[in-house]
C-alpha cells in the first residue's frame, strides 16, 4: 500500500470533504471526527513519504496509469515532501485547536465549514505534490475558491474584503494560466519535468521570456508581494479566526513554494539567473516589500492587523532569498517556508484564543491579558520572539541563512532590510507584551492589593495545541541545521553555485 501514498494523501481528505458535507445535512456530530481522521491520515502519509524520500530519493506516481507527457504525474522529491509535512501538520493542528471556536461561531453551519476546510487542505496538498503545470492551476482554483468562502463569512466588512480577494486572486490565477499557455505553445507539453527538458533547448526565444514574466506576475499577485498586496490585509484580518488559522500560515508559503518550483525546476536555474538586471530588480522589490511591510505594521492598532502586515514582510524574505541565487540563501528561503508557517500558526492561534475569550484584539482589549490568559500569552511571546529572530527559536536560523547568503552575494540592501525588519518586529511585539503585562486590568486601577484574577483561559484543546506549536518552534530551531543538510540542500537543483 505504501506505493500509493502520493494518491492517498490527496484522495482521503477529498472523499472526506464530500462525506462531511453529507454528514452536515444528516447528522452534525460526525463532521469534526471525520475531518480530524482525514487530515490525520494525510499527516501520516506525508511523514511516510518524507522518510521514503530521505532514504531512497525522489519517486514518481502516474495518475490513471499513463506515462508522464500524456498522463498526469506526481513527482515527490525532497522539496515538496518537506512542504507536504508542513501543510498537513498546520492543517491538522489548526483543526484540533479551533474546534470550540467553530462550534461557537457557526453553530448550524459546521458541516459546510469542515467540508470547505478539508477541501482547502486538499487543494494545498495537491498544489504541493503535483508535477503537472495545468493540474497545479486547477488545484490553485480549489484552494482559492474555498478560501474566498472561508474569508467571506467573517464579521464587519469581510464580504467586501473577500470580493476584492476574488478579483485579485482571479487575475493572478489567470495570468499563471496564460503563462502555462505560452509554455504549451512553445513546447507542446504540460508536464513540469518534460517542460524543463524542452525549454533548455529553446531558451532564446521571446515566448519563453514572456511566459516567465507572465508566470511571475501571476504568482506575485497570488502571494501578495508588496506592490500587489492590497487584498491581503483586509482579507486575513476580517476572516473568522478558525479560518485565518489555516489560510494565513499556508497560502502565501505554498505560493512561494510554487515560485521556487517554477523558477528552479521548470525554467532551469541557467535561465532564471541569466538575466542580471531582472535579478537585481527582484531583490530590490523584495527588500522594498520587507521595509514597507514593517512600516505599515507599525501604524496598526489591533493585534491581527499587525500580524497580517508581518506576513507581507515575510513574503519579501522568501522571494529575496530565492533571487539572491546561491545555495545558502535558497536553503534559507526554503527553511523560512517551514519556519514561517509554524511561527504564523503560533501567533494566529494565540490571537484566535485572545479574540475568543477577550471578545476583541485591539490594544484596549489586550490590557492585563497576561494575568487572565497566561498560557496563550506565553505562546504569543514564544511566537513573537521567533518572528523577531531570537536564537533558540527557528526564526533566527532562517534569517541567519538568508543574511549570510546575502552577504556572500554582496546584496547589502537585502541585509539592511532584514535587520531593519527585525528591529521593527521588536518594537511591535514588545508593545503588545507591555500592554498585556504591565497595563492594569480595566476594573483594577492600582497595583497594590490585587486579588488573584480569575484565570479565564482559552479552551483546553486550543491551549494544548498552542503549547505544542511553541515547543515545536524551539525544536525546529534546534534541529534546523541537520534539517538543512539532510533535506533542504539535496533538494536544490545542481545548476546553482
Amino acid at each position, binding site marked *: 500500500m505504501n506505493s*500509493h501514498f502520493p*494518491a*492517498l494523501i490527496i*484522495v482521503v481528505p*477529498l*472523499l472526506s*470533504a*464530500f*462525506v462531511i*458535507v*453529507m454528514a452536515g*445535512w*444528516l447528522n452534525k456530530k460526525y463532521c469534526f471526527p471525520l475531518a480530524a481522521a482525514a487530515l490525520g491520515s494525510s499527516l501520516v502519509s506525508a511523514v511516510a513519504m518524507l522518510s521514503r524520500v530521505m532514504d531512497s530519493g525522489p519517486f514518481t*506516481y*502516474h*495518475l*490513471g*496509469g*499513463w506515462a508522464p*507527457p*500524456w*498522463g*498526469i504525474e506526481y513527482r515527490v522529491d525532497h522539496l515538496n515532501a518537506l512542504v507536504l509535512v508542513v501543510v498537513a501538520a498546520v492543517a491538522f493542528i489548526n483543526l484540533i485547536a479551533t474546534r470550540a471556536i467553530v462550534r461557537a461561531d457557526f453553530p*448550524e*453551519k459546521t458541516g*459546510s*465549514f469542515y*467540508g*470547505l476546510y478539508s*477541501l482547502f487542505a*486538499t487543494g494545498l496538498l*495537491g498544489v504541493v505534490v503535483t508535477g503537472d503545470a*495545468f*493540474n497545479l492551476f*486547477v*488545484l490553485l*482554483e*480549489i484552494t482559492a*475558491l*474555498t478560501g*474566498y*468562502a472561508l474569508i*467571506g*463569512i467573517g464579521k464587519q466588512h469581510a*464580504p467586501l474584503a473577500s470580493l476584492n480577494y476574488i478579483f485579485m486572486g482571479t487575475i493572478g490565477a489567470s495570468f499563471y494560466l496564460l503563462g502555462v499557455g*505560452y509554455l*504549451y*505553445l*512553445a*513546447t*507542446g*507539453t*504540460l508536464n513540469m519535468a518534460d517542460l524543463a527538458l*524542452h525549454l533548455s533547448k529553446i531558451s532564446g*526565444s*521571446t*515566448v519563453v521570456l*514572456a511566459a516567465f514574466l507572465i508566470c511571475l506576475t501571476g504568482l506575485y499577485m497570488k502571494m501578495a508581494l508588496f506592490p500587489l498586496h492590497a487584498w491581503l490585509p483586509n482579507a486575513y484580518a476580517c476572516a473568522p479566526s478558525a479560518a485565518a488559522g489555516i489560510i494565513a500560515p499556508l497560502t502565501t508559503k505554498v505560493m512561494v513554494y510554487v515560485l521556487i518550483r517554477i523558477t528552479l525546476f521548470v525554467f532551469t536555474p541557467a535561465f532564471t539567473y541569466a538575466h542580471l538586471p531582472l535579478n537585481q530588480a527582484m531583490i530590490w522589490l523584495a527588500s522594498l516589500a520587507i521595509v514597507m511591510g514593517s512600516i505599515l505594521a507599525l501604524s496598526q492598532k489591533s493585534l491581527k492587523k499587525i500580524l497580517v502586515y508581518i506576513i507581507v514582510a515575510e513574503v519579501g524574505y522568501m522571494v529575496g532569498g530565492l533571487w539572491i541565487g546561491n545555495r545558502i540563501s535558497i536553503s534559507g528561503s526554503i527553511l523560512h517556508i517551514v519556519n514561517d508557517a509554524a511561527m504564523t500558526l503560533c501567533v494566529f492561534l494565540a490571537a484566535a484564543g485572545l479574540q475568543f475569550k477577550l471578545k476583541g484584539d485591539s490594544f484596549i482589549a489586550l490590557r492585563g491579558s497576561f494575568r487572565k490568559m497566561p498560557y496563550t500569552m506565553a505562546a504569543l511571546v514564544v511566537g513573537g520572539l521567533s518572528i523577531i529572530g531570537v536564537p533558540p527559536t527557528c526564526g533566527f536560523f532562517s534569517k541567519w541563512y538568508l543574511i549570510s547568503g546575502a552577504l556572500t552575494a554582496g546584496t547589502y540592501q537585502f541585509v539592511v532590510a532584514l535587520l531593519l525588519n527585525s528591529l521593527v518586529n521588536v518594537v511591535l511585539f514588545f508593545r503588545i507584551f507591555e500592554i498585556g503585562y504591565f497595563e492594569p486590568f480595566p476594573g483594577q486601577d492600582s497595583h497594590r492589593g490585587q486579588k488573584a484574577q480569575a484565570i479565564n483561559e482559552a479552551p483546553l484543546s486550543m491551549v494544548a495545541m498552542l503549547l505544542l506549536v511553541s515547543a515545536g518552534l524551539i525544536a525546529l530551531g534546534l534541529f534546523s541545521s541537520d534539517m538543512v543538510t539532510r533535506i533542504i540542500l539535496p533538494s536544490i537543483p545542481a545548476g546553482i553555485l
Partner: protein
Amino acid sequence: MKTFGIIAVVLCGALLIYGTVDFPEWGDPASPASTYVSPYYIEHSIPDTSVPNIVTAILADYRGYDTMFETAVVFAAGIACIFLLRIEKRDSPRSRLYRHIPTGVTIRIEQGGRLPEGSRDLERIDSVWVPYDLIIKTGCRLVIPFIQLFALYVIAHGHHSPGGGFQGGVIFGAAIILYALAYDLRTAQTHLPIRTSVLLSSTGVLIYAGTGALCLLLGANFLNYSALAGLLGVDPVTARSHGILIVEIGVALAVMAVMVGLYYIISSAGRLDEGL
C-alpha cells in the same frame, strides 16, 4: 485613477503584443503544440479507450485527475454559496398573498392565516406584481420533459458526439431552473428541495472519486479504469470506456445539483422562500 488604469492596461497590452513576435504561424500543423503530445492522443484514443470523441477520452481518462478536481471546484462553489448566504432563522410568518383566478382579485392575509391549499380558483403568489402567466406555465410544462430527455442524451452520447457530463448536467439543471422560473421557488422546492440537491451533488462527486478509489483498491494506480475489467467482466479497453461513462454520470449528477442549488440560493438571497 481612471487615466492611470487605462495607461497601465494599454502598456500591458503593447507588451503582450510584442511578446507574440516569436509565436508559430497561426494554425500551422508543424507548430510544437500540435506535433509533440497531442498526436499520441489522436492516434491512440481508439485503440486505448475505444472512444471516438478524443476530447471526452482525454477529459475523463488520460487527464481524468484534472476533471475530478474540476468537479470538486463546482461542488466547492455550491457549498460556498450555501455557506455564505443561507439564513437559518425562521422569521415571523409574514402576510400571504392569494389571487382569485376568475376575477383577478389579490387577497392579502396577515399574521400567518392560511387558506385551504386545495382550492382550485385561488392561487398563491409571491408578490403583487407577479403576472398571471397561464401560457408560460403550461408551455414550460410541455417543454421541460423534452429538455431533460435531451440532457440525458447529451450525457449518454458524450462518447460519440460533442457533449458529456458537464454539458448534460447543466442542461438538466437548466430544465429544473426553468420549472422554478415558470412556477415559483416554493413549488420547485417541493420537487427538489435544497437538502436533496446538496446530497445529490455530494453523491455525484463521490461517484467520481469513488470509481478512482475503487481502481486503487483493485491494485492499479488511482483512476486507472482498466483495473475495473475484472469487476465489469470485459476486456480492459472497454472497461476504460465504461469507466469514462460512469465518471460522466457522476459529473452530470454533481453539476446538475450544484446549478440548481446555486439558483435557489442566489435568487432568494438565502431565505429560500421567494425566487425570481
